[in-house]
């Protein structure tokens, strides 16, 4: 049978369809990751009314505005404490932060580590496209060493963060890394994160053909995604300190997986009250 042209998609129930198509570039990795998140919302067993999606500023941060849930597009880097307060005031809600690498780990770095330390009950999905995309491709805390960016015309001189290692070290109870290509595993990871109580973190490597691909001689989004196809391996038991991503070293794979899945008591400001004698 040839294709049938239609005007709506089964996933539309989770979206504010009057705002589609979204603003992301052709081939942008945010799209597939959002699709995985939307699918997870549908399969989570939690009604849309009880989901909240919070972001900071950036391309990825535009995502909550497209989703048909209580959505909050806050200030740059501040999505995590904002989300924490929603989770504390409305503990029955499933609160997810959906934001980018620069927003969460540049300006927002301090909030990330404290939230992980406290083990606040939110999910953090970080779309890592290795640059500050919205503002034109500047270098960020995850830009690989030597990569070009608009503020690193000679190549980045700063080693990037190893995000899964950072998240695990600061106390996240669930840490995973997937890509915009591994959407099925990503969806499963998001579902697991939603199920878990405590601070969960999922890094999603995403192509950014305009902001990152172009200055780094990656022809288009397909070429960047084929990079993932060729170099990704899955190892749930990987040694976290070795999870650095180095674009230039073809002998070093990109390691994906669900690396950490542990139990820690989630943050409860009233935890000590229960210990007081009546």
């Amino acid at each position, binding site marked *: 049978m040839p294709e049938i042209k239609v005007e709506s998609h089964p996933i539309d129930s989770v979206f*504010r369809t009057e705002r589609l198509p979204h603003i992301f570039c052709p081939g942008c990795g945010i799209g597939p990751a959002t699709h995985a998140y939307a699918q997870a919302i549908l399969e989570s067993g939690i009604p849309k*009314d009880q989901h909240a999606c919070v972001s900071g500023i950036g391309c990825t941060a535009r995502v909550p*505005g497209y989703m*048909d*849930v209580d959505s909050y597009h806050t*200030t740059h880097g501040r999505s995590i404490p904002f989300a924490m307060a929603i989770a*504390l005031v409305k503990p029955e809600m499933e609160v997810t932060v959906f934001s980018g690498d620069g927003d969460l780990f540049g300006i927002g770095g301090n909030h990330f580590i404290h939230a992980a330390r406290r083990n606040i009950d939110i999910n953090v999905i970080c779309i890592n496209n290795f640059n500050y995309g919205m503002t034109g491709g500047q270098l960020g805390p995850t830009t690989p060493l030597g990569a070009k960016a608009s503020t690193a015309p000679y190549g980045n001189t700063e080693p990037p963060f190893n995000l899964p290692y950072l998240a695990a070290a600061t106390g996240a109870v669930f840490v995973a890394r997937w890509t915009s290509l591994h959407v099925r595993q990503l969806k499963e990871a998001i579902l697991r994160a939603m199920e878990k109580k405590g601070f969960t973190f999922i890094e999603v490597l995403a192509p950014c053909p305009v902001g990152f691909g172009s200055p780094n001689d990656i022809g288009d989004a397909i070429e960047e995604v084929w990079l993932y196809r060729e170099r990704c391996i899955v190892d749930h038991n990987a040694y976290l300190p070795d999870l650095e991503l180095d674009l230039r070293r073809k002998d070093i794979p990109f390691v994906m997986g669900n690396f950490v899945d542990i139990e820690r008591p989630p943050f409860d400001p009233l935890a000590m009250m229960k210990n007081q004698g009546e």
Partner: protein
Amino acid sequence: MSPEERVLTGSHFLLGDYACAEGAMAAGCDLFAGYPITPSTETAERLSARLPAVGAIFVQMEDEMASVAALVGGSLAGARTMSATSGPGFSLMMENIGMAAMMEAPCVIVNIQRGAPSTGLPTLVGQADMMQAKWGSHGDYEIIAYSPSSPQECFDYVIKAFNMSDRWRVPVFVMADELIGHMTERVVIPPADQIPRVERKRPRHKPGDPSFLPFLAEDEDLVPPIVHAGEGYRVNYDSLTHDEKGYPATFPEPHDKLVRRLVNKIRLHADQIIEYEEIFLDDADLAVIAYGSTARSARRAVNEARRDGIRVGLLRLICVWPFPENKVRELSNQVKAFVVPELNLGQISREVERFTSLPVIGVNHAGGVMMAPDPILDTIREVAKNA
């Protein structure tokens, strides 16, 4: 009286900082998120004990940006939220105060002012954040700011701050200072059923009604009804400029429309918000305008001057923003000059100058010590002689 009671009814001898905390408890504060900073720390410390005892939330955040982010998030989830800080923290909070103004999220911030600028004089009084309260974040927006002159007023005006914040959906500041914050004085707390409480405006539309426009202000007061997380409205709250649906609308027309409404909410209704106290102003031909701890010294100076036969009066500002410009205009028809004592180098005096062509003489000190009545009295005498 059991510690689980929110309202500490009775007559107490309370530190100003503690009175702020008790005001928050009586007002029904559900969430306090703050960072320790002299001289406001006592407010946080008191609430760290009082809030959990009633099952409410106290969190010490990692910094002041996180604190106000939490205030806005908690407020939009339905809670009454508050923080307490001083100058350096207030500066850090400015970014998300802008977000609170843009998202029209009610929240209360107590600023126990100290010597400034920068780290300044951490343990000693100042009044140098007054302009910052109005203009501290970037852009055009309006806030409400109270200036208590006693621990009793700290209690009363924290409660009023919560009510006005919920009423007008703007951040409200209680601009105390270290003198008031660290002063111990009598505070009378009424029974719980006498504590006034104003509730937020709620929508007429049911959740899921596609015709609901969350940022359409249909009423004369220009305040839209608020919806909270988890109520089924599934609204987008955006720090970007937005349209009436709440979606980003980064274009000139909706932007101008939105910012004008945010500002007119307060500007066109200032008469419902402004508060001041008039002492001996009826027959005055010289007016002193003062606020906060300085107003106490100004009152003494005015009393002394009256004994000398000088026809001076005091306009004590209780609500500093919105500024009582009409009262200043009115007084300009009556008096010959204004004297504005402040523990800064001229901030509210500039506001007075805007609304009068009469001489405005400042009595200024950068802070670190209570302004005594003497310099104010000397200035009154000087001005009265030359007027």
